């Protein structure tokens, strides 16, 4: 059974969960602590590590198959000479994505989570041990393809970039508010398919994002059209410059 929905009852823990109460006085305390504090603590450590090396850390999130790896390949081809880029890849299984990144000339560390459907700060912390950040300008963390869980876990990144591909439909921001609220930039990908999938409206997708009170820029891109990627490259360059001057 799975670890995440509370269904792993065993004979051992069922009995102990019904242990009898003892007598005594009761003290109350206001705790006001975040329940994800452990992850957040490691994430802060990761962020400090990035900052100490002047590295921009970008967390790439999307549904499976939206084009994260393809976007990174196109980015490496265009910017690989201008910025030193390293990638942390997250997948349940296979090293496919890390191999694709390495084929485009960048170092890549693959995290295979097995069953975990998102990366967390601990996993990223361990992966960073395999990267020498001294020679790096930008680290991309390509999260597990999933529009639900990754949004809840701070990894220590500076920016969240969420991809929404044309075949997925333009109402995804409304359906996945936690994810799209977390986006610092939304990339509508596979825009070369707009001619074929004319029911997708980039305006509707942007309106749905605004309804989440998120002012993040929305860029329409296609990895097959280098000109469409120019605003993405400019955004990256600006964010990298901002980190370097912090």
């Amino acid at each position, binding site marked *: 059974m799975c670890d995440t929905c509370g269904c792993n009852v065993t004979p051992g823990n069922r009995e102990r969960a019904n242990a009898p109460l003892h007598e005594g006085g009761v003290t109350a305390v*206001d705790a006001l602590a975040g*329940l994800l504090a452990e992850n957040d603590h490691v994430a802060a450590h990761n962020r400090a590590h990035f900052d100490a090396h002047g590295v921009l850390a970008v967390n790439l999130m999307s549904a499976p198959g939206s084009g994260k790896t393809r976007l990174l390949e196109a980015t490496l081809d265009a910017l690989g000479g201008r910025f030193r880029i390293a990638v942390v890849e997250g997948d349940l299984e296979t090293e496919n994505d890390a191999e694709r990144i390495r084929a485009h000339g960048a170092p890549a560390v693959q995290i295979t989570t097995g069953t975990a459907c998102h990366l967390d700060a601990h996993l990223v912390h361990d992966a960073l041990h395999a990267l020498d950040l001294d020679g790096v300008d930008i680290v991309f963390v390509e999260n597990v393809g999933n529009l639900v869980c990754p949004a809840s876990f701070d990894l220590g990144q500076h920016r969240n970039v969420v991809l929404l591909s044309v075949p997925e439909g333009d109402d995804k921001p409304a359906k996945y508010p936690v994810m799209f609220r977390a986006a610092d930039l939304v990339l509508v990908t596979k825009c070369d398919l707009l001619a074929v999938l004319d029911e997708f409206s980039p305006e509707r997708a942007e309106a749905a994002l605004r309804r989440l009170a998120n002012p993040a820029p929305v860029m329409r891109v296609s990895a097959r059209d280098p000109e469409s990627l120019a605003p993405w490259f400019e955004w990256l360059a600006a964010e990298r410059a901002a980190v370097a001057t912090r």
Partner: protein
Amino acid sequence: MHEFSVAAALVRQLARLAAERGACAVERVTLEVGPLSGIEPALLARAFPLAAAGTPAAAAALELRRVPVRVRCRECGAESAASPDDLSCRACGAWRTALASGDELLLRTVEYRLEEDSHV
């Protein structure tokens, strides 16, 4: 999602607090969970006793307060009730709002019992 791992993290926090305060048992825990927290309260309530078994929180009552989604408008200043997929101001319709509540995932209060043999 990940209610069990959140429950496990909560239980670890409670165990630390119990150890710090010399408590023998946690009696009651109050959490605040908002719809935009990414956590489903009913699943967290189911996961908690399982995560707490064998710990000082094993018999703790869990109270989950659901926090409503409320926004404060950056244009007109009004505070209004909103929904997870629509955070626009209900007074003037502007989309530039700030979340006043709704994404909380907080341990609010803990009630615990001190060691039985402590003398006042």
